[in-house]
């Protein structure tokens, strides 16, 4: 037996190129479907985990897929906005806590996500460096966003209007990076987080005025209001929020009507969740409530359907490839006719030839399996990134 493998090994070494091609072909045939499945599994795990952690989502009535992808994975697709009062509405029921979220803009390619501080508690995000945002104009970076932008605490980052949906509304604001979040292995790693109020300043809903001294806030005369002087006051708006001009920043209109993209609803228990979902049954209402897990599952089903199609194609291709390999072997047997004759003449049984061939095939198979495993192992760390890339964009 040992001699069989020795002879087979010498033979394979002698025909290096042929062996290499065979090993590569076989390992690819194995690695492709396995890798695809690994990627789909990673994607499923990663998306399901995120969806499971987000019990309910309130957003504009319409595409629940867009809503979920926008609020959970900060996808680039634009979601119609809802009003801030929706978050109060959720909390006011007493059944759930409402976390408003505004993920509509991008800053230097990274999603700019407006949240309240509760979001960091909810997702278990803590700064690895620096602090969470404290003042208007502060931002905190996800681990990958920080790496990608090459920024850390103390740096500044200019928000630019990158939203195709309203070009007029936004104006650039210099954001102060207060911290970098620890890696969370979730879409949060890619985001630039600001307080909702900062997001609204970028949106143009809040602003500061030059020289607050020139615009005294109290212009009442002793016994009643004076006719206001308006036009002569400074109209310039700031592009950077500093401790000096912070106090002059203000918002117009009712903040309850300000835009957000979704409210993450955290019901206190199952019964509360059911009651809350009942609140959104009205078909005519402008908002809807979705279970991200349901949405994600139906989305994944589509992905798996495509995956199954891929599997079918790969099976066919694999079968053809195996036939080709068999062909290669049978052709090589014909070429080795003289060699086989010699083996018989040496007095070996017919079985010996078969054993030699078997040893050869086994060795090639083992090499291919090893290469296949190595390729899969090398690609494993990127599986979830690839999944994110292929499934979400």
């Amino acid at each position, binding site marked *: 037996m040992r001699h069989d493998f020795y002879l087979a090994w010498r033979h394979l070494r002698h025909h290096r190129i042929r062996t290499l091609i065979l090993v590569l072909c076989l390992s690819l045939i194995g690695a492709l479907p396995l890798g695809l499945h690994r990627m789909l599994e990673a994607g499923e795990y990663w998306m399901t985990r995120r969806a499971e952690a987000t019990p309910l989502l309130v957003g504009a009535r319409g595409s629940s897929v867009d809503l979920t992808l926008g609020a959970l994975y900060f996808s680039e697709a634009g979601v119609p906005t809802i009003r801030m009062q929706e978050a109060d509405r959720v909390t006011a029921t007493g059944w759930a806590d409402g*976390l408003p979220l505004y993920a509509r803009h991008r800053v230097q390619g990274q999603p700019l996500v407006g949240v309240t*501080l*509760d979001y960091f508690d909810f997702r278990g995000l803590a700064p690895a460096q620096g602090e969470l945002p404290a003042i208007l104009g502060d931002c905190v970076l996800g681990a990958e966003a920080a790496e990608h932008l090459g920024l850390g605490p103390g740096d500044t980052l200019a928000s630019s209007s990158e939203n195709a949906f309203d070009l007029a509304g936004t104006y650039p604001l210099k954001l102060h990076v207060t911290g970098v979040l620890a890696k969370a292995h979730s879409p949060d790693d890619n985001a630039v987080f600001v*307080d909702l109020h900062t997001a609204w300043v970028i949106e143009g809903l809040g602003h500061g005025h030059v020289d607050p001294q020139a615009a005294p*806030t109290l212009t*009442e005369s*002793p016994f009643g209001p004076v006719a206001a002087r308006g036009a002569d*006051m400074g109209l310039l708006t700031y592009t950077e929020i500093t401790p000096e001009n912070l106090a002059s920043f203000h918002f117009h209109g009712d903040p309850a009507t300000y835009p957000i993209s979704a409210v993450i609803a955290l019901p206190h228990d199952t019964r509360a969740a059911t009651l809350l979902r009942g609140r959104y049954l009205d078909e005519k209402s402008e908002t809807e409530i979705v279970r991200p897990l349901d949405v994600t599952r139906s989305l994944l089903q589509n992905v798996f359907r495509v995956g199954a199609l891929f599997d079918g194609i790969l099976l066919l291709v694999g079968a053809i490839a195996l036939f080709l390999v068999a062909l290669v072997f049978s052709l090589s047997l014909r070429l080795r006719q003289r060699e086989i004759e010699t083996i018989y003449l040496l007095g070996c049984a017919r079985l010996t030839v078969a054993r030699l061939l078997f040893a050869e095939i086994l060795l090639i198979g083992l090499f291919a399996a090893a290469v296949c495993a190595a390729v899969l192992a090398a690609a494993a760390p990127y599986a979830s990134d690839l999944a994110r890339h292929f499934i979400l964009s």
Partner: protein
Amino acid sequence: MPILRVLSVVFTLLAASASGAGAIGESRLKIMASNYPLAYFAERLAGPWATVTLPVPVDVDPAYWQPDVKAVGTMQKADLILLNGADYEKWLVHVALPRLKRVDTSAGFRDRLIRIENAVVHSHGPAGQHSHEGIAFTTWLDFDQAAQQADAVAKALIARRPELKTAVLEALKALQAGLADLDGELKRITSARPGLPLLASHPVYQYLARRYGLNLKTVHWEPGEMPPATEWTGLDKTLAQHPAKTMLWEAQPSPAVSDKLSTKGVTSVVFDPCANRPASGDFLAIMKQNIENLKTPFQR
């Protein structure tokens, strides 16, 4: 009632020694209050189970306070952030604070808040002219509203520490009884001479005037500053139609101002809104003194 309070304190101490002193130290609620009345309510209601902090320096009026990064950091770490609401916390839009830990104690009577119209009008951008209307914020000078705010504080405490429910409700009863006493006393005093013309040095008494039916006209003077001549002529005009003999002040005015006022027959009376922690006494004591100060003009 005092016996019950003593008993509850004794029980807490027993619980503390039983579970180890460290345990109660860690489980102490960290409460932030945006003004002294709320801090006082929280101290009365949460007693030994909480550390109540008023982040505003003692010499600053909390209504005009602007927190710095450090103060925001401390507030972010609190378990409960008590807000007066009614547009009191102008700094709220400038800072990042968890929403779920915030409690707007005046939300219960939001529809009864007094709007100040035409406060400041300015224009900018294509939107044109608009006004920044404000809301009168000294809500606690209506002691019935103060009791509702105390109620909101109690509800927030119980929501976070359900096991303290009985103790908190007991303390709330005592606190609200104290506030109801103030309310009754003030109503009794002011009803003696309804419509008595009064002046106020600062526009902070809107709720006091509404609740207790005060016939109040307001100037905008600071206790430490001599108002300019135009203000005095304005005052003369007002006095012609509104013959007030008393002016309410947030703090004792400078002798020069009070002397000049008395030449016009106007006596200065302190009614301290007590927005920040007083040097001595507590909220109820200060309010009792305020009511005492107000007695004289109504008894004349």
